[in-house]
């Protein structure tokens, strides 16, 4: 497999050399469009490249999930030395704690804790608009630039273009002759979080064109959908693809749940209102209050659309969101004809062999035979 884009990469270096500012985000519910409209580069914090999370554990204790510990470790160790600010949502308990710790020990000039509602009715949207106004002000202060409606609309258009391209990328996994693997789709969504969208869109467009001319992927035994806790490591997905599976879609906040549904505009809405409504309406997450049925329907829709044979449910150890979510989908998936493989994951993968055995056995099971 080709290497995944580095956290500290040439695009960011070039951006900084030109005097640009970079803002780190944690959680896919943070509207990057607002950061972008201020002329800054949003990058998503990830736990990859961390091989030892001792400082993360020291601050957050081993009670926290490994993903958040690794993200904090990467922040403390200086992997994100280029950040000027950080925006963290209350996405889950440990993401909140990540913010709390960074608030005490972090060296970025700007630290924002965005309060994202856990419902998407009109009151929640109204509340979220107020929260986004605070975020907008903070971003204006950090960038020294006013965020106009015109700039927000331009950012929305650019991000919607990225979303359309990502949907097109995933469409290449469909059908009898898939052209891209799940390892590649995750590498591309992670790339989207790690560089300027203006350049990314051009690169992804070129990749899609190149991929359309490729020989289809053959020899895989089962089409899989990976759901569950944050999986930000393409190497982890690659384990499944080395053992006979093909991850054709996912329900992962580093995959399809990052930039999938467009920010739509309704008559009479301000850009901030459009962003607030669209972000709350996007593919749901167990952090939302009692939206389990909606979430299941979303996952089922994807499973059908991508013609999957089985579901790989990955739960990070101590994940307060996905840890217990299976009670709402496990039996339903089985009733709907989708076998589920449950795996417990640590952010730092040290058991690739054990994961491989399970992946291979799951594919053998789905194939119904062994040849």
């Amino acid at each position, binding site marked *: 497999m080709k290497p995944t884009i580095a956290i500290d990469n040439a695009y960011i270096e070039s951006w900084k050399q030109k005097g640009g500012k970079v803002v780190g985000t944690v959680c896919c519910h943070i509207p990057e469009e607002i950061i972008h409209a201020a002329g800054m580069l949003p990058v998503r914090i990830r736990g990859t490249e961390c091989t030892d999370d001792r400082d993360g554990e020291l601050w957050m204790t081993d009670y926290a999930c490994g993903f958040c510990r690794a993200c904090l470790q990467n922040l403390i160790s200086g992997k994100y030395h280029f950040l000027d600010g950080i925006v963290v949502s209350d996405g889950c308990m440990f993401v909140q704690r990540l913010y709390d710790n960074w608030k005490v020990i972090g060296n970025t000039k700007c630290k924002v804790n965005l309060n994202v509602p856990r419902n998407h009715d009109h009151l929640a949207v109204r509340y979220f608009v107020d929260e986004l106004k605070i975020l907008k002000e903070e971003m204006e202060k950090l960038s020294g630039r006013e965020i106009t409606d015109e700039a927000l609309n331009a950012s929305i258009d650019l991000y919607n273009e990225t979303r359309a391209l990502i949907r097109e990328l995933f469409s290449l996994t469909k059908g009898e002759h898939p052209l891209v693997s799940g390892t590649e789709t995750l590498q591309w969504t992670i790339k989207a979080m790690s560089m300027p969208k203006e350049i990314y869109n051009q690169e992804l467009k070129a990749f899609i064109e190149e991929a359309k001319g490729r020989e289809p992927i053959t020899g895989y035994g089962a089409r899989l959908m990976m759901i569950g806790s944050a999986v930000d490591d393409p190497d982890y997905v690659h384990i499944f693809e080395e053992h006979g599976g093909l991850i054709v879609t996912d329900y992962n906040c580093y995959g399809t749940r990052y930039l999938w549904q467009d920010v739509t505009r309704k008559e009479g809405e301000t850009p901030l209102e459009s962003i607030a409504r669209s972000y709350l309406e996007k593919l749901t997450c167990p952090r939302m209050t009692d939206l389990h049925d909606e979430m299941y329907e979303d996952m089922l829709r994807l499973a059908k659309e991508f013609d999957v044979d089985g579901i790989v449910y990955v739960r990070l150890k101590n994940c307060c969101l996905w840890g217990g979510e299976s009670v709402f989908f496990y039996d339903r998936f089985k009733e709907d004809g989708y076998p*589920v493989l449950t795996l417990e994951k640590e952010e730092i993968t040290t058991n690739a062999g054990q994961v491989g055995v399970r992946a291979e*056995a799951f594919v053998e099971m789905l194939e119904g035979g*062994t*040849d």
Partner: protein
Amino acid sequence: MAEEFWRWSETSWRNPDLEGWQKGTLTAGVDIGSTSTQAVLLSDKRLVAYASIRTGANSKDSAHNAMRKVFDLTGLRQEDIAFTVGTGYGRVNVPFADKTITEITCHAKGAHYIYGSTVRTILDMGGQDCKAIHCDETGRVVSFMMNDKCAAGTGRGMEVIADLLGVPIEEIGERSLQVEKDPPPITSQCVVFAKTEVGHLMREGWTKEQVLAAYCEAMAERVARLLRQNEMVEDFAITGGIAKNIGVVKRIERLMHVKALQSDYDSQIAGALGGAVLGYDLLQRRKKRARKTE
């Protein structure tokens, strides 16, 4: 040299009822586990011979040694075998394998061969992992759950306790039942901590039988959780080395309110046996395909 109570007996067996074999139908399964290695030989799906040995430092050598034992019993040679399946954690280290298949698929097929088409839930208690497997009437896996975080609840954990208490491993099951009332289970999940707890209980004046009962109970409770997490459908069978420990088996039966199927086959050969059966099926399919293309 100190006595090693953990050492279980290596075995080999040849079917006395089988007069000869058809060379084109000989298939083998080799299961390299973390603790033991088995080789099983079938002729036209009938059991010819098997060997079960301890896995050494080199997995390839273990595969060769197990097969050599089978060849010694039968006078056959590697080139006589039409198809070999490698399975177990060391499956990629079976140099003469035609195909590798995971131990989960193989154990289900092996249990189906041993216990018949009514078996639906298989508990494989191996050297360093445990698997709860649900299969259909053909031995095809429907779902599975695996626990291999550490040696707790596995054969290796039992070996450690055998040495610690100075009780031969084959006697642990029976002796664990020689208590008037089952004591509370050992609480530690970790074998290292369990050792400390066992030492404490011995100093408290517990008999070896009581400690063994507490350890077997703890192991049974852990695997019962695994069984409940997956799907517990009767008939129920246990494979792997721990299936030979009557103390653990009885306690699992009590906790799960089921009776495990019994067989004269060695429970440790299920994985390799399943591999040999699957090897036979694959061989037939390939022959069929070859006939079609002729």
